[in-house]
């Protein structure tokens, strides 16, 4: 990730520059936490001579840098790294950005107008209710209210009408339908009553309703937009250059100019940019991105190598087969994006309630009208219309977005980042939970567990340290972490590393090596390496990927709550079985040796399922899952596929996540009860012809206040999640 050289090249730089007069680039910054970060980044970058301006957007976690000249953006990226942050250059997606910006400003204007109107109408309504209903003054106030109501009902409420039109086209009436009906019927009835000088005028309540719905929806929208910039993170670095063999030497060319059959060179520690065949005798690759397997894989000449895998040592030649979107990893990401974009938005609970409501209320109104028309036709019209206005479930329309926003903010403070409020509802339908192994259930790092038959002596420790210090192998890193001696042996000679075998060296006349040992580990899985002196085994280190401390208890908790837990891993069956048995999984709950495509298939077979894993190598499975939770790896890539990102690592927050979903749903249900209660009183009053302006004036605000309080009050559990907590990790 730390190589920003591609920002030097003009053709790839073009992909990232913002279309502004001064050269500018936007970065997604991981690790922005507080105001210190904002200042550190802005001031740190402004000290560079050619930086014109640097601005952090705290909510989006983005940083925009304006420069005086075109070159040097790679240095900016490195400077950000030096300041202690991880920058990811964002491609300008100006169309989406502009649309979002325009929409947000438009929304604010609509809210502003309705707010302005509601404040003033309320003042006049108070006067009316207080008795200012003398012939002339009353009419005057009503006309002023109408003047304020008209821009609200036309301009401000426009998004509501658009929603209704869309939902009617999809033949799925949403909660906006009864609301719009109530607004318009209420408006027309009020206008008629105003002219006739008899009956009630609802302009004040209707304006208030529109204002509350618009504001609560805007709050939720802004919270969900927080992760919008992540859609601009490129998962594949298509702008990379490759070294192509031209018959005599290697040329630096860009990826797009490659032809199948070309031969390219890949250096140590580089990501292989293409799918192809290995031409070198053999290579050692980290294929974690495709298999989740953390140990390096050795492949021989002629074998398939895949884009995205990392070459661990040496340099190799690869015959190109495909790259970019055509490569296997490109296909996986492409399918993931396709799946995500085709996911039909869930018809949420509010809308389902709204549908039932609409049919009931309209049915009731029509039924009443038909029966009562025989008694008194004009009164029948009046009462049925009053019913539609007073029985509108409008409080739900603003209480639900509000309680969802609150839950999302609280979760984010805990370090649980939720992309969309619909996730809460989807969580409630989950029966099966699939866990990835490496990094999710385990730490994702090899560690030395024990030595046999004895611990190495201090000389041996220094020897191991010196031998392994030059190796890139995960085993070497684990050994180096484990041994605390820092003195290197000076007189070690003829050091060499044989890929796939081990490291060798000569010290004081004896030939030492560290190779994989055949002795089984006490655990029965993991890796063992032995230190050999002249081919005689001295001691063996047993290494394994440790379970996270919270894994077992969390799994037990989930099982007692009635979830079916399963392991879905790319690792070998043997490893998965061993780990699964240790954690109390049944044999049929273990899926080992699964490619990314297989994982996605298993998920679709077990729907509705949740997938918990690392966002990149499980991306496809996550996109197919009903709900996906990423617990490992970097946030920006993970949140592209996953619905939830848990920043603490490990799975211990998952039971709590289910609890948040459950509790916020019970708040919704409670609000529904309140709302139904008030609405049925309103409906009864309307049908009995008891409607008096003061009734609407009391009932409407009272139900709003009850439902709002209930939404903000939450539940016992939701209250334990603090709103202000420094514990937010990222």
């Amino acid at each position, binding site marked *: 990730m730390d190589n920003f050289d591609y920002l030097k090249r003009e053709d790839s730089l073009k992909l990232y520059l913002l279309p502004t007069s001064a050269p500018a680039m936007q970065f997604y910054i991981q690790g922005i936490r*507080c105001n210190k970060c904002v200042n550190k980044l802005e001031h740190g970058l402004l000290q560079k001579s050619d930086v014109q301006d640097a*601005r952090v957007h*705290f*909510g989006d976690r983005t940083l925009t840098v304006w420069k005086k000249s075109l070159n040097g953006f790679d240095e900016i990226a490195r400077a950000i790294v030096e300041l202690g942050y991880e920058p990811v250059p964002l491609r300008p997606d100006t169309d989406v950005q502009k649309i979002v910006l325009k929409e947000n400003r438009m929304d604010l204007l609509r809210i502003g*107008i309705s707010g302005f109107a509601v404040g*003033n109408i309320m003042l006049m309504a108070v006067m009316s209710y207080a008795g200012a209903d003398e012939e002339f003054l009353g009419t*005057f106030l009503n006309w002023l209210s109408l003047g304020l109501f008209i821009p609200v009902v036309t301009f401000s409420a426009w998004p509501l009408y658009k929603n209704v039109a869309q939902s009617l086209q999809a033949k799925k009436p949403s909660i906006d339908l009864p609301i719009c009906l109530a607004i318009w019927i209420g408006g027309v009835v009020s206008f008629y009553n105003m002219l006739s000088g008899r009956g009630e005028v609802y302009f004040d309540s209707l304006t208030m309703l529109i204002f509350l719905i618009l504001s609560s929806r805007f709050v939720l929208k802004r919270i969900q937009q927080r992760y919008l910039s992540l859609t601009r993170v490129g998962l594949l670095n298509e702008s990379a250059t490759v070294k192509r063999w031209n018959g005599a030497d290697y040329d630096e060319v860009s990826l797009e100019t490659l032809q199948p059959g070309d031969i390219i060179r890949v250096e140590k520690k580089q990501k292989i940019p293409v799918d192809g065949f290995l031409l070198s005798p053999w290579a050692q690759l980290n294929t974690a991105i495709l298999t989740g397997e953390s140990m390096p894989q050795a492949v021989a000449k002629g074998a398939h190598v895949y884009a995205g895998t990392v070459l661990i040592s040496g340099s190799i030649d690869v015959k190109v087969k495909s790259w970019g979107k055509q490569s296997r990893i490109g296909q996986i990401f492409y399918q993931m994006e396709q799946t995500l974009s085709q996911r039909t938005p869930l018809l949420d609970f509010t809308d389902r309630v709204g549908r039932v409501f609409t049919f009931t209320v309209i049915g009731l109104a029509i039924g009443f009208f038909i029966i009562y028309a025989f008694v008194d036709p004009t009164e029948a019209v009046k009462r049925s219309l009053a019913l539609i206005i007073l029985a509108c479930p409008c409080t739900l329309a603003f209480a639900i977005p509000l309680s969802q926003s609150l839950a999302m903010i609280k979760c984010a403070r805990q370090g649980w980042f939720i992309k969309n409020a619909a996730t809460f509802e989807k969580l409630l339908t989950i029966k099966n939970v699939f866990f990835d192994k490496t990094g999710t259930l385990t730490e994702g790092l090899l560690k030395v567990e024990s030595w046999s038959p004895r611990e190495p002596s201090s000389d041996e420790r220094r020897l191991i340290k010196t031998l392994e210090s030059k190796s890139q192998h995960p085993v070497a890193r684990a050994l180096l972490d484990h041994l605390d001696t820092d003195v290197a042996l000076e007189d070690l000679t003829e050091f060499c590393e044989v890929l796939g075998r081990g490291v060798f060296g000569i010290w004081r006349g004896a030939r030492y090596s560290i190779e994989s040992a055949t002795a089984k580990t006490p655990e029965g899985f993991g890796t063992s390496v032995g230190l050999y002196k002249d081919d005689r085994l001295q001691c063996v280190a047993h290494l394994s990927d440790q379970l996270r401390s919270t894994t077992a208890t969390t799994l037990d908790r989930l099982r007692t709550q009635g979830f079916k837990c399963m392991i879905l891993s790319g690792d070998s069956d043997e490893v998965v079985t061993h780990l699964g048995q240790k954690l109390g999984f049944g044999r049929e709950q273990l899926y080992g040796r699964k490619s990314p495509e297989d994982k996605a298939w298993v998920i679709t077979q077990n729907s509705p399922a949740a997938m918990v894993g690392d966002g990149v190598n499980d991306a496809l499975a996550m996109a197919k899952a009903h709900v996906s939770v990423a617990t490992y790896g970097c946030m920006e890539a993970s949140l592209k596929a996953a619905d939830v990102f848990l920043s603490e690592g490990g799975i211990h927050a998952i039971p709590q996540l289910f609890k948040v979903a459950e509790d916020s749903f019970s708040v919704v249900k409670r609000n529904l009860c309140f709302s139904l209660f008030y609405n049925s009183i309103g409906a009864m009053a309307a049908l009995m012809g008891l409607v008096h302006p003061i009734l609407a004036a009391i009932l409407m605000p009272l139900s709003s206040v009850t439902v709002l309080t209930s939404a903000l009050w939450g539940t016992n559990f939701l209250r334990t999640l603090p709103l202000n907590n420094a514990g937010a990790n990222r």
Partner: protein
Amino acid sequence: MNLIFLLLPAALVLGFIFFLGFVWATQNGQYDDLDTPPQRILTDDEKEQTANERRST
């Protein structure tokens, strides 16, 4: 009491002027980012250059 027929519209006109101010501020992008300014204000300026001049976009 008749004064109210003058005062009410006058109050509305006054309110409308402030509303125009709100429209202007919104179109100017003052409400685009509500998260960063409250963070930025907490630390002292060191060398706040003429940032507004530079951002011509």
